[in-house]
């Protein structure tokens, strides 16, 4: 009985609620502004009345009879002594007041206009436009008429004083009308011809009897409206003043009651569901206690929820209001109390209204009322519904492990014994399940909980595990520990693209960190300087299958961002393959086997030759070729600059570096995914990483400060180059000061000078760099890294060895600091290079204090830029995602939103996925190579042909543990 079957929601409609409905659904009327009595029992008809639901365990709800946990709570109500305005509707109230007649309540539009706006509303809804624009236009139109088109009553302007006060503004006869008339009758002192107006003249002109005019002048008779108008016309003056008549909520309610149903439809209100007078509250719903539970503190004191505090205030004022009114208190006091009641109801609904001081807790903290519970990042929508904390998740620091496959993740044993996967026991896995249970919760492949078919969950303990294992039967559920080969989801924040969340296979390991292969660092943008990552264990078979097919790391090698691989060799891997293949070194049998020990290759091909000692050798390119598929053909230019040629799986010439195997578009990895399979590419990337690590360890690779030093004569040349630049700049400044410098088109003379100086200094740095570069040897580790694309650039190197160069802030030389100079060390208006942040020393040589200061200025700008950029782009991304989240590619190829409006007629104009398109630049789609391959297959023998046609899909999504040992099938491809 307590478990209800799930139901599908057909639709949701929003509207106003009839106060009568409040009363009907209310469990009790609340009249006492108190919670518990001295004995700790809830007060009847108080704010914690047991009919409003239960929060204390063991008690029974007086309305539904259920206990805490299963009783959702029930609304109560407070009868308000006087109607008050609901703050959430102040704009709608203003709109209704302005567009309807104060007398008859009808919309101040004629039938044609009404019809027009009704049609426009329907059209706006059809075209997905904002209906508010139409409603605003309707109100604007209605406001134009000064009298009601139905009853002829003149309309007053409505003034809205935020948040909840409304005034009717009318022009009425001014109090000092007689003085104003008399003054206007006086002759104009500046105009000698003007003799003024006698009362008789005025009477004639305004067509009022002289007697009346005299009475008016004496202030004994207040002119009626007609008389006033004619007097104003005769004298050319204004006799009125504005009169503000405050509209009490009860007045507004009476007004709204008169608005006919057909008129509110034009204003966008559904008359079947809502009536405008329901906006004005006459009865206030009291949220159930389950929505505002009180907390018992350690010392036994009860601490009430903010909403309860607010309700106490409301009831107190409500009570006082009623007492005062019954006692016949003066109108002034009643109005004050009314305003106070309005304030409390307002802050109960929203405590962040501008112009209203927020209601505060005793401690001075603003109360968190209804609106605050829903709004913002931590509110109900963004904080509790769209995103919430989850079970079956773990988070810890990450560290690298090159022995893992890129598909794997090392999970600490203490995580694996805590995180569980639910398995449904059947007759086929019952023995396995019993084994998990009998291992208990502390031995690794054990289990933590079992669930009986009747829904009861039992904790597996060291004591009961043996006994429990015998009881496990088909139909039970066992929460077993994570074991090797389980599929889990792994994530690093910020999750900026889909490769930030990928599925990995578990490898349970000792110690406390998650371990991952270094080649998956680029997609996660992870490093190991303290980064933490999250892991989620999947709980249903469908989820696990889906994750394995769609989300596994090997399925994400290609990035949809640029259609090339994002997973590949990085950093030392690239240095390693460079050392292995550049200038093609030779290896003895033991060395060659050592290089290949972590790969599936266990036999060497025929040696490439014999050295002078007569022992066979293998070249680096041969060893590298062992990892390639036997039929791979490729030709491209490497980042080192030579041409790489691969024929029939043999690397014939060229250096393997970033452009061949690197993340972000390594040609070989990219080709393997596209022409072979994700699986083949995964094997290749794994093996290249191991081979490269072995290779770099074979050669030894280190870098120290002496690797960036250049001989003294080179230093001399660098100084010479800089001296030359200084001289040229001196000349430029001289011509400028003589006024002889010619400005470049579209620039001032000052700008021209700046540009020319910058240019000269740039050249000086470059030539210093060239000089330094000339003195580095090919085997310099920093050069190796820069050439191969592993890390760093030649620019970094020249800055270390030659000259750091010009420091810039906002793309200009440094110009800030003191008046007309950058530092107190320089004369004002010094235009020289060193006074504006040119650093002539190298990092290795060391900067002077002034250079250091300028360098810090430039460096600071970089830091500020990144900080600003991340926060800006984060917000932009959020908005973009919110705008695009409901778009979906449909089966007919179109992209539509949830209301079926078409956004694109063909996904991306061409209906193709970026990761399925050839990345070769010569052909948009690599038709030639496809035809080649197809034709080649066609020309083979009949047996080959049938093999081709009966070919089975490569088993891309099997676990690595499910694959045959030794990778025979991959070999058979070759």
């Amino acid at each position, binding site marked *: 009985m307590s478990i209800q079957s799930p139901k599908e929601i057909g639709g949701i409609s929003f509207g106003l609620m009839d106060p009568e409905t409040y009363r009907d659904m209310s469990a009790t009327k609340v009249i006492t502004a108190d919670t518990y009595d001295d004995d700790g029992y809830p007060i009847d008809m108080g704010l914690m009345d047991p009919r409003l639901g239960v929060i204390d365990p063991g008690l029974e709800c007086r309305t539904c009879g259920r206990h805490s946990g299963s009783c959702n709570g029930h609304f109560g109500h407070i009868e308000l002594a006087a109607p008050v305005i609901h703050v959430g509707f102040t704009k709608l109230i203003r709109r209704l007041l302005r567009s309807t007649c104060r007398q008859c309540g009808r919309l101040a539009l004629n039938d044609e206009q009404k019809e027009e706006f009704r049609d426009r509303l329907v059209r706006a809804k*059809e*075209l*997905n436009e904002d209906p508010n624009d139409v409603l605003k236009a309707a109100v604007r139109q209605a406001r134009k008429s000064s009298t009601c088109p139905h009853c002829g009553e003149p309309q007053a302007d409505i003034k809205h004083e935020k948040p909840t006060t409304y005034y009717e503004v009318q022009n009425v006869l001014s109090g000092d009308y007689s003085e104003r008339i008399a003054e206007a009758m006086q002759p104009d002192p500046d105009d000698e011809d003007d003799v003024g107006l006698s009362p008789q003249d005025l009477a004639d002109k305004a067509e009022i009897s002289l007697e009346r005019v005299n009475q008016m002048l004496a202030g004994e008779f207040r002119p009626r409206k007609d008389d006033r108008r004619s007097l104003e016309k005769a004298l050319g003056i204004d006799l009125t003043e504005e009169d503000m008549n405050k509209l009490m909520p009860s007045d507004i309610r009476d007004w709204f009651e008169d608005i006919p149903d057909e008129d509110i439809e034009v204003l966008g209100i559904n008359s079947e569901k809502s009536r405008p007078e329901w906006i004005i509250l006459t009865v206030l719903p009291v949220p159930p206690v389950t929505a505002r539970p009180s907390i018992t503190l350690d010392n036994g004191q009860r601490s009430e929820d903010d909403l309860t505090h607010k309700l106490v205030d409301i009831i107190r004022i409500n009570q006082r209001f009623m007492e005062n009114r019954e006692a016949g208190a003066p109108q002034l006091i009643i109005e004050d109390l009314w305003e106070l009641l309005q304030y409390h109801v307002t802050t109960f609904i929203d405590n962040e209204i501008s112009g209203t001081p927020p209601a505060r807790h005793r401690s001075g903290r603003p109360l968190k009322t209804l609106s605050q519970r829903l709004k913002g990042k931590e509110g109900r929508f963004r904080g509790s519904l769209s995103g919430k904390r989850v079970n079956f998740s773990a988070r810890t620091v990450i560290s690298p492990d090159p022995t893992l496959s890129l598909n794997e993740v090392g999970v600490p044993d203490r995580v694996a014994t805590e995180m569980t996967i639910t398995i449904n026991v059947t007759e086929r896995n019952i023995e396995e399940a019993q084994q998990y249970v009998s291992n208990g919760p502390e031995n690794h492949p054990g289990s933590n909980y079992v669930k009986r078919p009747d829904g009861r969950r039992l904790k597996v303990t060291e004591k009961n595990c043996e006994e429990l294992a015998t009881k496990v039967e088909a139909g039970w559920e066992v929460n077993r520990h994570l074991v090797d080969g389980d599929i889990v989801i792994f994530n690093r924040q910020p999750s900026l693209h889909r490769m930030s969340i990928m599925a990995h296979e578990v490898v349970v390991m000792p110690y406390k960190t998650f371990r991952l292969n270094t080649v998956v660092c680029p997609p996660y943008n992870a490093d190991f300087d303290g980064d933490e990552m999250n892991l989620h264990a999947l709980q249903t078979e469908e989820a696990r299958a889906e994750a394995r097919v769609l989300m596994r790391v090997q399925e994400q090698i290609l990035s949809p961002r640029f259609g090339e691989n994002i997973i590949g060799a990085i950093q030392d891997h690239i240095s390693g393959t460079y050392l292995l293949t550049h200038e093609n070194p030779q290896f003895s049998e033991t060395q060659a086997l050592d290089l290949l020990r972590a790969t599936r290759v266990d036999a060497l091909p025929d040696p490439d030759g014999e050295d002078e000692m007569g022992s066979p050798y293998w070249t680096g390119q041969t060893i590298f070729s062992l990892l390639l598929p036997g039929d791979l053909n490729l030709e491209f230019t490497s980042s080192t600059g030579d041409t790489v040629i691969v024929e029939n799986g043999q690397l014939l010439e060229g250096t393997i570096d970033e452009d061949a195997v690197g993340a972000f578009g390594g040609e070989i990895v990219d080709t393997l995914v596209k022409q072979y399979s994700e699986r083949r590419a995964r094997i290749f990337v794994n093996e290249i990483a191991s081979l490269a690590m072995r290779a770099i360890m074979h050669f030894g690779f280190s870098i120290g400060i002496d690797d960036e030093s250049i001989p003294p004569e080179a230093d001399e040349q660098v100084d010479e180059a800089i001296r030359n630049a200084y001289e040229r700049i001196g000349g430029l400044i001289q011509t400028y000061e003589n006024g002889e410098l010619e400005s470049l088109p579209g620039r001032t003379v000052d700008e021209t000078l700046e540009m020319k100086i910058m240019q000269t200094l740039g050249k000086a740095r470059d030539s210093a760099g060239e000089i330094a570069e000339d003195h580095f040897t090919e085997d310099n580790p920093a050069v190796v890294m820069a050439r191969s694309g592993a890390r760093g650039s030649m620019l970094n190197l020249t800055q270390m060895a030659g000259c750091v160069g010009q420091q810039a802030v906002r793309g200009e030389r440094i110009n800030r600091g003191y008046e007309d100079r950058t530092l107190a060390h320089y004369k004002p208006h010094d235009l020289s290079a060193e006074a504006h942040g040119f650093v002539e020393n190298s990092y290795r040589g060391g900067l002077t204090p002034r250079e250091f200061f300028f360098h810090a200025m430039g460096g600071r700008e970089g830091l500020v830029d990144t900080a600003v950029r991340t926060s800006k782009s984060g917000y932009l991304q959020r908005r973009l995602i919110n705008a695009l989240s409901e778009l979906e590619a449909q089966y*007919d190829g*179109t992209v*539509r939103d949830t*209301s*079926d*409006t*078409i*956004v*694109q*007629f*063909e996904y*991306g*104009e*061409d*209906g*193709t996925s970026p990761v399925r*398109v050839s990345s070769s630049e010569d052909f*948009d*789609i690599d038709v030639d190579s496809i035809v080649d391959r197809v034709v080649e297959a066609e020309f083979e023998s009949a047996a080959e042909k049938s093999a081709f046609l009966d070919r089975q899909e490569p088993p891309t999504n099997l676990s690595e543990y499910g694959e045959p040992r030794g990778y025979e099938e991959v070999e058979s491809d070759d």
Partner: protein
Amino acid sequence: MVDVSQHELVPEHILLDDDSEVEEVLEEYNIKKTDLPKIKRTDPALPDEAAPGDVIKIIRDSRTTDKAIVYRLVIQ
């Protein structure tokens, strides 16, 4: 005045003045007229005779598919 519709970057905008053509498009995508993307009547790329409620066929050059055809509903 510059006639932008003659500019090389402005794709061809063709008014579907035959109701059956419009019907065909709506049939193909199984949509109502209002589910189409919109274009304002005041858009300078539109042919002069286009009126609100008309459907426009736009033929764009595409790098990948040569020609990409889209339809838009004229509004206001």
